[in-house]
């Protein structure tokens, strides 16, 4: 199978070179995967095993879901998860709607005000507003300690607008022309033709927005002072990174004397915050290699 044509013109590697290559790639993959296995394993471990191993369990002999039961039965982590899910859902929907509308609005180079509006978007790519001025704007809008402060300031990403606009502009003109001849207006063309034809790129952009909202730490730290409103990332920081102990009070009264070990609780929170990303990843991952994103920017 190592014929010349399949190597794309490259001289085939020698056997030792191939072995070295395989080892390097295996190590790279292991460095990514091993921590995940360790975290999941520890979150499923019993108290005895966590104590015996001194913290980290790689191969538990017996598994228990007690840690997940504890964090998901009301209390701090449950509340934060609900908040994060809600912010991510609402935010992603809003971002996708606003981004595709703006991308469509800028997709005809001869339309009124096209140039100034496009410049406005392009300049936004060049600089990020400072921390202090952004804080002052959010504050003067009365959005401090409001969930909208996690959404509105980051709802539009200029790069995504440019990508989507470029994609819209490259859609086959014949289809749109014939729809127009059949009497479709701009709204119908967007809804019936442009959006359905752009599903793949919308999926990837949607993933980026969703991951951004789910992972948001900076906006929450900056704009939310009330810790009852914390999303999952801030809970992670407090209880996992800073290792503040999770007691019965934080766990909705479950556990009591038989509280799962702290280490298992922490790892369960960590797994909880990773799972949504693992769930959506396979659906959009195949689009990356097709160059959906980067093919569109070159123009």
């Amino acid at each position, binding site marked *: 199978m190592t014929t010349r044509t399949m190597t794309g013109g490259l001289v085939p590697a020698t056997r030792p070179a191939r072995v070295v290559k395989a080892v390097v790639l295996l190590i790279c993959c292991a460095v990514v995967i091993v921590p995940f296995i360790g975290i999941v394993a520890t979150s499923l471990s019993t108290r005895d095993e966590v104590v015996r191993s001194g913290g980290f369990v790689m191969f538990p002999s017996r598994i228990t879901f007690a840690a997940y039961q504890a964090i998901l039965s009301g209390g701090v982590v449950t509340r934060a998860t609900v908040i994060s899910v809600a912010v991510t859902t609402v935010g992603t929907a809003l971002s996708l709607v606003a981004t595709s509308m703006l991308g469509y609005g800028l997709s005809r180079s001869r339309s*009124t005000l096209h140039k100034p509006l496009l410049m406005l978007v392009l300049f936004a790519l060049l600089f990020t507003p400072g921390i202090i001025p952004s804080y002052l704007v959010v504050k003067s809008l009365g959005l401090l300690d409001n969930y909208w402060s996690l959404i509105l300031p980051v709802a539009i990403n200029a790069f995504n607008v440019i990508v989507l606009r470029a994609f819209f502009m490259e859609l086959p003109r014949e289809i749109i022309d014939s729809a127009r001849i059949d009497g479709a207006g701009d709204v119908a063309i967007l809804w019936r033709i442009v959006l359905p034809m752009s599903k793949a790129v919308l999926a990837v952009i949607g993933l980026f927005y969703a991951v951004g909202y789910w992972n948001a730490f900076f906006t929450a730290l900056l704009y939310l002072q009330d810790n009852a409103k914390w999303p999952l990332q801030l809970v992670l920081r407090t209880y996992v990174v800073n290792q503040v102990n999770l007691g019965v009070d934080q766990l909705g009264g479950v556990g009591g004397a038989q509280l799962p070990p702290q280490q298992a609780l922490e790892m369960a929170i*960590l797994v909880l915050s990773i799972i949504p990303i693992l769930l959506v990843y396979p659906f959009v991952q195949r689009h990356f290699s097709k160059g959906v994103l980067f093919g569109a920017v070159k123009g």
Partner: protein
Amino acid sequence: MVTGLRQAPERLRIGALGRPHVPAAKLTWWRRLLRDKVLLLAAVPGIGLLLLFQYVPLLGNVIAFKDYEPFIGILQSPWVGLANFAVIFNGDPAFLNALSNTLVITLLQVLIVFPVPIGLALLLDSLISERTKRIVQSILYLPHFLSWIIVIAIFQQMLGDAGLMNTFLRDHGLGTISIISNPGLFKLLVTSQVLWKDAGWATILFVAALSRVDPTLYEAAAIDGAGRWRQRWHVSLPGLRSVIVLLLILRLGQSLTFGFEQIIPQQQAVGINASEVLDTYVFNNGIVNGDWGIAAAVGMVKGIVGVVIVFVANKVAHWFGEQGIYQA
């Protein structure tokens, strides 16, 4: 609107999404407005959000020249000229410390983090089986989608005092190594975190560029007697050159910006001295301590320097015959 009308050329041109064939100059601006009303209305929410959260904050930078007091407001606060910039000009020790930490981390990033994805991409490109390549890519891209908090927590679990590595060392009667809370190793720690999170994802552009290299170039080089390494050096790397230049310019533009989200959660463990960078300096002085003017002044200078670096680097790229990020 009026400018649009004046500039509208006579030649017929169809807009991207199939405008009817109407010479633009024959329409009054009012009719053009009516014709494009849907497009303009569609742009309103997005443009509004951009204006409010990207452009209005630019105005907020005036507090860099004021003695801002939150309870009397921006307008009423007294002007103080360049007093807030004194920390920069006079070299306030805390500011200089943040600046030097930022620059050292940036240097490490450019020297260590930047080349790794190029090597990784060459390795991926040389894989013959498409399936293996896809699996490896899926695995290596994944950490990019995790938040910094998650990455930091994972590093703690692996390298912390009670983490996997030290547990292993202890179990085998070896001494433990303190990494996570060691100020001396902090810069290397954050560098390795960036590598773990983003090295795989950063290959994506390089892999795409390599797949566009014409295979006959490799064949021609092989006929001329080039071995594998020489093919890589004389064919693959030149194929990557414009992507490398583009990404390097963008990276240099970020020289003074280093991961607020990555540093803030780790400051407690290693202390301010080792970990303060410009972004955390702005946050800690402004939001935490209430030195609004000084923080805004430093943030503003940082932003301006970043944009200037991009323009200069782009100019330099043009001198070397590269396209850069835009053509002047």
